[in-house]
């Protein structure tokens, strides 16, 4: 009894990503290193085809593989984010790989495989499937973090990430085991139906442990200690991917659980509340004292995880989680565009070996490279939440969702944190525009690949800020019918 053909259409993006990952892997030893650009090009074709293949999942919505996986508007939305991130990360890293003399083959293959894993997480309707997707993306991330082999910091980052990540994985797995023990199923929809006749305490413990595992993956406080070191040590294009794609996928899994399992909402609500507040403060207060731009952006991503968690708390607080889910999805889009662009700029301006990533090194950038300075400022302003940019609307929707769920305090703390955030984002801009360069730094021309990525991310940031209707409309559509 073979699964019906429609099931293959529903996982079409994963099939394309997996196939191209393997293709690149096999071609890597054949193609000489001087021509590794070909491998990046093939991977780009793969990512583009995977984006196109999401059309199939839209044409054949529904459950696949006896309900383990689900192709619906929600999974489509998250697929578009993670595959888009992979496309831009591969495109933006081509020149970086050449400059740092790194192999493109395994790099691109790992990104494609990791993205396939994130796609699985986006559509997983069952915990074990979600777990395997999570591990696909995590293991590939550990390796990618260590990719700058000569740099001790890169190795340290990978080691820390791997050890703590495995620890979080153990929590997640233990949680699945307890949930299975309580409900007798790992299917999220069946778990939702099982409801009353299950053992409530075991279910609660299981869901609590799953929450810990996911909170680690999205870098939320108090599980965020690894984030600054890993984001600083990993190669900057990898950081660009790590801080966006896997985070979106982990949030997707959390939202899927939240929408399906009725017990999760009331149980997770206070945990989400507390973790959101801690993340916002830990991220923003930590970022203020940083002198390294990569570390500062890492702390800012902790804070942004906190903002998204506010949306999750808003979704958990009511019986109508749609507004919260839609806000979280929109935020993920706006955040992914900006973080990708910012980290790729850092990757380029850092120079060989990423030596110039201190904020000091960005002084006077406006005079040396006005276009890059303008781009980075745009991204920082969007992170800050300036109106007409995507980041503002992201915060606005989250704020609204929090108010609709009567979470006044959470909304106030969110607004307060945005103000704290303004300080350190503006500090970088002041350095770029108003201060003299502290030391002479050679200006490298911007490669066209990076220029394309920056055009796309910058245009996307402005577009989502000015005309959010289509994106938020799609997100709202994705938020209903998740079970």
């Amino acid at each position, binding site marked *: *009894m073979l*699964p019906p053909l429609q099931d293959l259409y529903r*996982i079409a993006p994963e099939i394309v990503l*997996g196939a191209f990952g*393997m293709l690149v*892997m096999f071609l890597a030893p054949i193609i000489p290193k001087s021509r590794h650009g070909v491998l990046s090009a093939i991977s780009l074709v793969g990512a583009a085809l995977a984006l196109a293949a999401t059309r199939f999942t839209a044409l054949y919505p529904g459950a*696949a*593989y*006896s309900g*383990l*996986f689900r192709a619906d508007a929600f999974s489509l939305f998250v697929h578009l984010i993670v595959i888009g991130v992979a496309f831009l990360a591969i495109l933006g890293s081509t020149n970086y790989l050449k400059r740092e003399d790194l*192999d493109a083959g*395994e790099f691109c*293959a*790992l990104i494609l*495989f*990791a993205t*396939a*894993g994130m796609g*699985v997480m986006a559509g997983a309707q*069952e915990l*074990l*499937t979600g777990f*395997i*997707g999570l*591990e*696909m993306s995590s*293991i*590939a991330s*550990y*390796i990618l973090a*260590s*990719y700058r*082999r000569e740099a001790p910091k890169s190795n340290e980052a990978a080691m820390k990430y791997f050890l703590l990540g495995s620890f979080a994985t153990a929590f997640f797995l233990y949680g699945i085991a307890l949930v299975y023990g*309580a409900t007798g199923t790992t299917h999220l929809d069946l778990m939702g139906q099982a409801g009353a006749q299950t*053992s*409530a*305490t*075991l279910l609660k*413990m299981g869901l609590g442990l799953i929450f810990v595992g996911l909170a680690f993956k999205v870098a939320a406080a108090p599980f965020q200690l690894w984030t600054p070191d890993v984001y600083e040590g990993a190669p900057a294009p990898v950081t660009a991917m790590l801080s966006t794609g896997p985070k979106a996928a982990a949030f997707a899994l959390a939202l899927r659980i939240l929408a399906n399992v009725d017990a999760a909402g009331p149980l997770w609500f206070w945990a989400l509340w507390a973790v959101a507040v801690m993340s916002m403060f830990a991220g923003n207060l930590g970022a203020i004292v940083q002198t390294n731009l990569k570390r500062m952006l890492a702390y800012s991503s902790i804070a942004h995880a906190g903002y998204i968690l506010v949306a999750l708390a808003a979704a958990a607080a009511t019986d109508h989680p749609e507004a919260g889910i839609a806000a979280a999805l929109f935020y993920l889009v706006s955040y992914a565009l900006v973080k990708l662009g910012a980290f790729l700029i850092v990757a380029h301006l850092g120079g060989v070996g990423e030596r110039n990533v201190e904020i000091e090194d960005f002084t006077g950038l406006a005079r040396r490279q006005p276009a890059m300075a303008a781009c980075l400022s745009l991204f920082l302003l969007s992170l800050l939440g300036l109106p007409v940019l995507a980041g503002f609307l992201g915060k606005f929707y989250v704020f609204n969702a929090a108010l609709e769920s009567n979470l006044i305090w959470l909304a106030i703390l969110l607004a307060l944190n945005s103000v704290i955030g303004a300080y350190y984002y503006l500090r970088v801009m002041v350095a770029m525009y108003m201060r003299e360069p502290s030391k002479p730094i050679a200006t490298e021309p911007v490669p066209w690949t990076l220029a394309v990525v920056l055009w796309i991310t910058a245009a996307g940031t402005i577009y989502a800020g000015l005309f959010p209707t289509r994106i938020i409309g799609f997100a709202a559509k994705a938020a209903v019918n998740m079970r």
Partner: protein
Amino acid sequence: MTPQIAVFLVLAAMAVAGAVNLILQRHPIHSALSLIVVMVALAGLYLLQGAEFIAAVQIIVYGGAIMVLFVFVIMLLNAGEEERTNLSRMARYVGVPLGVVFLLEVAYWIGRATSHMAQSSPQAVSTRELSTLLFREYVFPFELTSFLILIAILGALVLARREDSD
């Protein structure tokens, strides 16, 4: 006390003792050997539940293949006794109490939860049923694990290659 419970208690005690010894031993090879005890005791527990396939796999894969890898790695790295540092002392004074608290909490909640549960007799799942389940209902995650392994292989390749590039 039925014989099942007696066997269970013996195996469970073996598993716990092995696990505790694993942590207490300071030489990695001794820890690895204690891990074998845990694995074998677990296999016995699976057998007691009527899951003979899982028990066999546990012995072959974990007790056999994975333990050989462990021992290989320890020998290759020539890992000596672990050293006590300030941080490991802190881990002892903070980590051990936290671990004990977590253990008691889990034990308490599981005890409370299972006391309300109806006595369900363990259903023996035959190997045939298991394979049907694995290759029909769960074929998607099953195939995905091959990708997971592929990623791990690729990772080993990337990590190993750096040596000869130096």
